[in-house]
């Protein structure tokens, strides 16, 4: 098992190496002079030339790549031309906000999606199956920002059940940033009120993001349950007198959930870059919105950082998914680990 994990880690290193090459390519080979961009239009040609020398821009590409990678590993991603702050500082502020949001969204979609998927699959062709199918298609067909606006309107404006925007009210004093996760920082600072308020604030945007994934993952689990139910081994579990509850939540669920886990991982990484519409509606100070702003303002250093973070997220999530599946499915473990 350790062998399998280390093998996968090694694979991830290769993926990240490829990713860094790609990003370097974006950063250096696309038109535009980084030195000129860093200094602005008013700098003289000599100044630009000096900076080019400092930034190793006159060296061959492999040498440039080496210096670029070195500063990257040191956490130096340059200064954002839009926020005028080091990109690393920006990331440190925005990434946790989005992570908190999409982790919450993933949790919601996991719980609701799995429960409806299992029930719809087990009671195939029942009214519940039909209703969940209809709602799922609606959920898949409706863009998340429409859901976000609808939820905001209904729950915040009409019913006044939930606060509208941001992570906590502007008037509230934020706890010192330790993890960047508002709910956890609140707990660490011993301020339960912050955690609870943050929880209320996160519900609507997280749910808006979760809807489509609830629908998709629920459908996948349902299909998978239906398929597993036709297997001889499930029939034999019944014939051998194993309790129905045990069959449903142990013997049926575990083999059925494996395809869903893969999709869940991809969905999570996807949200990292695609949550910006919902973040915009709820004025959530998140990474996804930061990424969009960087693109729109041709903020090259920020774009490089954004691509890097998204690529890193995909690589890490895939690794995590593989490890989870390895625990769920012994065939993977035994085949690849050499038993």
């Amino acid at each position: 098992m350790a062998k399998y994990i280390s093998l996968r880690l090694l694979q991830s290193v290769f993926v990240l190496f490829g990713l860094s090459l790609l990003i370097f390519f974006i950063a250096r080979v696309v038109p535009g002079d980084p030195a000129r961009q860093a200094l602005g239009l008013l700098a003289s040609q000599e100044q630009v030339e000096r900076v080019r020398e400092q930034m190793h821009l006159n060296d061959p590409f492999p040498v440039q790549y080496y210096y670029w990678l070195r500063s990257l590993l040191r956490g130096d991603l340059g200064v954002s031309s839009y926020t005028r702050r080091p990109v690393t500082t920006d990331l440190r502020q925005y990434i946790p906000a989005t992570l908190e949001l999409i982790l919450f969204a993933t949790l919601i979609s996991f719980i609701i999606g799995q429960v409806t998927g299992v029930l719809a699959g087990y009671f195939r062709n029942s009214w519940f199956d039909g209703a969940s199918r209809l709602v799922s298609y609606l959920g898949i067909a409706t863009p998340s920002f429409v859901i976000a606006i609808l939820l905001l309107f209904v729950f915040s404006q009409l019913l006044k059940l939930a606060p509208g925007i941001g992570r906590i009210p502007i008037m509230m004093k934020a706890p010192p940033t330790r993890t960047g996760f508002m709910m956890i920082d609140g707990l660490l600072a011993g301020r339960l009120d912050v955690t609870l308020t943050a929880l209320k604030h996160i519900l609507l945007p997280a749910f808006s993001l979760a809807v489509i994934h609830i629908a998709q993952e629920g459908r996948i689990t349902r299909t998978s349950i239906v398929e597993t139910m036709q297997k001889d081994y499930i029939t034999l579990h019944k014939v051998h007198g194993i309790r129905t509850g045990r069959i449903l939540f142990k013997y049926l669920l575990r083999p059925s959930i494996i395809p869903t886990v893969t999709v869940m991982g991809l969905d999570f990484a996807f949200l990292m870059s695609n949550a910006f519409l919902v973040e915009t509606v709820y004025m959530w100070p998140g990474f996804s919105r930061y990424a969009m702003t960087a693109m729109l303002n041709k903020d090259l250093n920020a774009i490089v950082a954004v691509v890097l973070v998204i690529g890193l997220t995909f690589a890490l999530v895939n690794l995590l998914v593989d490890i989870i599946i390895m625990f769920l499915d012994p065939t993977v473990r035994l085949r690849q680990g050499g038993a």
Partner: protein
Amino acid sequence: MPNRSPLLEVRSLHVGFRIFEGHLRVLDGVTLSVHEGERVGLVGETGCGKTTTVKSVLRVLPMPPAKVTGGEILYRGRDVLKMHRHALHILRRQELTAIFQDPLQSLNPVFTIGSQLRDIVRDSMRTPEGKPLSRREIEARCIQALEETGMPDPARIMSNYPIQLSGGMRQRVCIAEALSTNARLLLADEPTTNLDVTIQDQILRKLDRLVDQKGASVLMITHSMGVVRDLTQRIYIMYAGSVVETGPTRQLLASPRHPYTEGLMASVPRLTGRGVSEGIPGRIPNYLAPPPGCRFHPRCPHRMPECSVEAPPMFDVGADQRAACYLYRRPSP
């Protein structure tokens, strides 16, 4: 044949499947019985409804699409088809058990052998006082069940996953699962068809001895004449959803009466070697629109006008041997 009332009695069972193209009328009045301590073979070509019969008895056919359109299945006189969920659970825990054809599909791939075997024993068995078994008793029972099948090193097998075992080993595990709870009737659906020829014999012999030891009754489904000859006392020959002939195994194999059985026997290749037989012309009918009357009549060399009008009842053709064919109709006095 013993005269006591049978353990299992299937009476004129009709089962259909609703599919997009229409209604498949698969079982067309299957009638058979298994007595206490008896071993009965159910023989027929692939697709003749043997497995559907077994799954109906176990009540594990997916409904829909399957639908029982007539007949009854009596176990110790009680109709399995009308049983409530709880009674059905008890029946499966204490009385019925099964082994399926494909050992690769019969074990849950993501749980260890031990996990599956323990849950079967835990949920099915009780102490004589009706209490659940202790952990140690469960473990001992599982190990014993595996040992009985001739499995080497059962303790290690318990912690293995199915993928780590060969087909033969997996079928031994399936036998252990089936017989671990002292069930009274074993429904064995081609238990060795998917195994290597060299293993088949070994497994069958083991199964034979175990069933003897436990005094269980067996309904063995197969398309192999060799298997029925060695293991069963009485057989039913099935064709296209109904039983066409029945009788004591050796007698029936020696002197088949129904034209289909005759054809079936003739198509078994013999070691004495008289070339490859010609088989039976034609093929199993389409269940969407089966031929009227006797379903075999389009392929039958002896067909008569009445064959396509009404299906023949069973006629006596020998001591305890009966065939559903108008050839054996007694001339009316």
